């Protein structure tokens, strides 16, 4: 099917979404770790508009933006489908993926604030998580139903990343008592072999996030 390369960053959940999708589809690829403080010429050439990872390169053609990459992977390697077949269900899946993207900045706000400002944002985040649990997940094991799909991958930063971030930023929002189903989903998700075997080391991630938060709070 042609040579596949992925430019990524070890700590990035966006990078990991792509890794998970490629592995779930059984696609062989070469991984190129990018130093975000010293981005490679190739990366800047492949993604001049954003200069960001991840970038997937297939047959020498670059695709940027993790969610665009996920749809590209889904269409190029249709085995083990990660999106529903029904058009309305697909629209629903895309809706929730889009919802997660739209709410990203609120979670980032939580990370870079303290005290009252953080508390206020925390209330907003709690509402968002409640919506995700009640409306997106419902009583299903996964967001798509009984099997893992792109929506799960797109929310894949909630388990592991958000959990580590909560320890670093001193919050406890993804809690089994207030969000039992979402919390259960997060634990299940991390145990899926492809996910479990492709997560950044939690200690390394924690140190990295502590450093990042320290820098953000200084400015």
């Amino acid at each position: 099917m042609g040579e596949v390369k992925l430019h990524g960053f070890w700590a990035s959940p966006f990078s990991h979404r792509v890794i998970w999708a490629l592995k779930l589809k059984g696609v062989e690829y070469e991984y190129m770790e990018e130093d975000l403080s010293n981005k490679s010429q190739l990366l800047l050439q492949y993604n001049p508009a954003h200069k960001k990872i991840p970038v997937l390169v297939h047959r020498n053609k670059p695709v940027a933006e993790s969610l665009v990459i996920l749809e590209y992977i889904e269409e190029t390697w249709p085995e083990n489908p990660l999106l529903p077949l029904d058009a309305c269900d697909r629209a629903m899946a895309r809706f929730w993926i889009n919802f997660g993207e739209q709410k990203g900045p609120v979670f980032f706000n939580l990370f870079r604030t303290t005290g009252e400002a953080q508390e206020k944002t925390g209330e907003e985040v709690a509402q968002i998580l409640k919506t995700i649990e009640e409306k997106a997940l419902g009583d299903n094991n996964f967001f798509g139903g009984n099997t893992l799909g792109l929506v799960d991958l797109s929310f894949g930063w909630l388990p592991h990343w958000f959990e580590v971030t909560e320890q670093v930023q001193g919050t406890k929002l993804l809690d089994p008592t207030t969000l039992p189903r979402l919390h259960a989903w997060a634990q299940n998700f991390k145990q899926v072999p492809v996910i479990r075997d492709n997560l950044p080391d939690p200690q390394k991630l924690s140190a990295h996030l502590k450093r990042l938060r320290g820098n953000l709070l200084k400015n």
Partner: protein
Amino acid sequence: MASGGGDVKLIGAWPSPFVLRARIALNIKSVGYEFLQEQLGTKSELLLKSNPVHKKIPVLIHGGRPICESLIIVQYIDEVWTSSGPSILPSDPYDRAIARFWAAYIDDKWFPTFSSIPKLQEQEAKVAAVQQVYEGLLLLEEAFIKCSKGKSFFGGDHIGFLDIALGGFLGWMRVTEKMFNLKVLDESKTPNLCKWAESFAANNAVKDVLPETEKLIEFAKIRFKPPSAD
């Protein structure tokens, strides 16, 4: 008689660029629909019920099932009405990825900057925003040259996904040009996009639903009226 009939409803409002995207897609596929217009300042029961998460237009209701978010609606229309009209998304997965990439760029980066222009009070901030808008359009000009391959639209011979994504804002680009006395689509900077804009506006799927600039200006004056100073 266009397909769909009473089965397809679109909740929207004529000035909205996002609603326009959905209408153009429906026109490309010759899908008949009932256009349920929301009144400025209120949200109907149907809207609140159909889009409880965002409470925003457009919402497409097909056979009673709601679809939300304009670009998701456009993809849905393309996937359901496959046998009528040309395809909206390109057939090749790589071309589809490019179309989706630039559509995401338009919605995530370009439009927020563009829509901030009238709200910015300081001249310096305004100038900076306008500069960013031009830079974005230069990128889109390059993308147009690559995607169109010499034809009239991003989609080639026919209006496609990226044409709809950008074209939805054409009316408001013209409003910005008239109200703030600046060129958004400038022949000296983005000649291909200027030509594209003319072709897009004249297209059969667009011309009857693209709001008239004068009407949009009147609407803008009411909708974005600054609070009175007392």
